[in-house]
């Protein structure tokens, strides 16, 4: 059996919204009064999960079922309300959104450099794969052009190219591949396939069940903050599709 890559134990995330005083004055004036109204809800509740090194896991679910929150928890952007998680993979790379960490006034070259270190990777490693990144993104001609003149497709390609060439052992991809055109998507999935055959753990979030079917071997269906189904792609997708057929509007 492969070693673990990621494990979650009773991971929960509660969001809370209360009528906050957005100004210092009102806060000071009403300091001792409790907030008028508090809304709380669990975005994720008691998620138990074990993902092993080399698995390709797809996460599906409707809007607002907690997919992105789960990714933000395991990448350490949010902290869990309760429960715990641990990541055993040394180099995890997360693509929560393509083109984040790019500065429009910097050139493509500078942005590649900056985005590389944003992932906590040593700059010395960039030299080896810089050409590969440029090649994959197809931006060779525009390397010294400020990024604001790039098309959104080019920015998306560049973003994916950097993360996928960074030699990750856990790659987290959130819905980002929907941006590009068909050719780019094909290229990305080919790259993902290649990474996976090298033993990379993949967590892919998507609305698109065909994407999940193509790439993943295991699928997790999140609904209302809990895991509804966790099994092979075929099992989960058939359960998911069944429900969706019955209640197409998510009722």
């Amino acid at each position, binding site marked *: 059996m492969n070693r673990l890559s990621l494990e979650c134990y009773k991971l929960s995330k509660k969001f809370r919204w209360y009528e906050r005083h957005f100004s*210092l004055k009102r806060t000071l004036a009403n300091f001792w009064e409790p907030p008028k109204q508090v809304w709380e809800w669990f975005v994720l509740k008691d998620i*138990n999960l074990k993902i*092993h090194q080399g698995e390709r896991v797809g996460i599906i679910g409707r809007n607002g079922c907690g997919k992105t929150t789960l990714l*933000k928890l395991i990448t350490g952007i949010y902290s869990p309300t309760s429960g715990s998680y641990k990541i055993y993979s040394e180099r995890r790379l997360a693509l929560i959104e393509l083109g*984040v960490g790019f*500065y429009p006034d910097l050139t493509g070259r500078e942005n590649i450099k900056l985005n590389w270190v*944003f992932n*906590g990777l040593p700059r010395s490693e960039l030299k080896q794969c810089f050409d590969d990144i440029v090649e994959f993104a197809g931006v060779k001609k525009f390397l010294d052009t400020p990024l604001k003149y790039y098309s959104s497709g080019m920015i998306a390609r560049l973003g994916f190219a950097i993360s996928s060439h960074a030699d990750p052992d856990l790659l987290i991809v959130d819905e980002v591949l929907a941006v590009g055109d068909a050719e780019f998507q094909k290229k990305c999935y080919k790259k993902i396939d290649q990474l996976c055959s090298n033993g990379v753990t993949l967590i892919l979030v998507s609305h698109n069940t065909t994407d999940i079917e193509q790439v993943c071997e295991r699928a997790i269906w999140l609904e209302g903050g809990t895991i509804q189904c966790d099994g092979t792609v075929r099992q989960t997708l058939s359960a998911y599709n069944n429900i969706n057929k019955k209640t197409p509007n998510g009722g």
Partner: protein
Amino acid sequence: MITKDVKLINQELDFPINTGRKTFKFLSQFRELWRFRELAIELFWTYLKLRYVGSVLGFIWTMLNPILYIVTYWIVFTCIVRMGLPDYPLYLIPGFLAWNFTFASLISASESILNSQYLITKISFPIEILTLASIAVNLFDFFVALILYLMAVVILPPTLPITALALPLVVMLQVLLTLGMALLAACVSVFFRDIPKLIPVLGTMVFFLTPIFYPLNIVPEPFQFLIKLNPMTHVITLYHDILYYRIWPDYLTLGSVFLIAIIFLIIGYWVFDRKRHTLAELC
């Protein structure tokens, strides 16, 4: 496309995971900061580059800005209001530059997290790096101005005093103090968006209540105590001691500034570290 048999389905976990974070949380945070050190350097250069995108004078603004201010104060306090200090610019400039560093750092730190909302909600990295990089840019400005000043003093008649050797120590103390205050400002600004608007006004008020362009002893006795409550007063006094009065700083002032700086740094970093995830959620 399904190549492997999936053996592990619906596994049950019946033990809590020992994440080992509680006990060494502080230490692991420093390790994380160290891992991202290249990001800090790269962000520093980025901020420096981006600052003057599209401006004609570009980098010259770094020097022009303090020079214009200093010339204004110089004219006001030698021609209009007589301060009665010989070699007045030598008194005014170091203190003004030092004040300007802390003031500008606090302003940019208070905006550093808020301006990067899209980063901290999408990428996982130690977000204090944003604050640190923005302070580093101000420190760079300070260094440029300070070196220009020192060069001018070396060339012009009243030569540089030997006590200027203590300058690195004083600058270091001031950086420590500024770091602590800036981390605190950066964190609190996310909770109360009034703070970034308050700091420039408050700073200007404190500027006039700090002995930067006047000596402390012209302040009436009962108010001296109040002015001494401000930690920046002691920092500026240190600069005046070594660069203007040509005396070595006394240990009491050095020690107390160091103590205040460390207290600010600990409180600032502690608050920031406790609230780091909340910052991403609130932004």
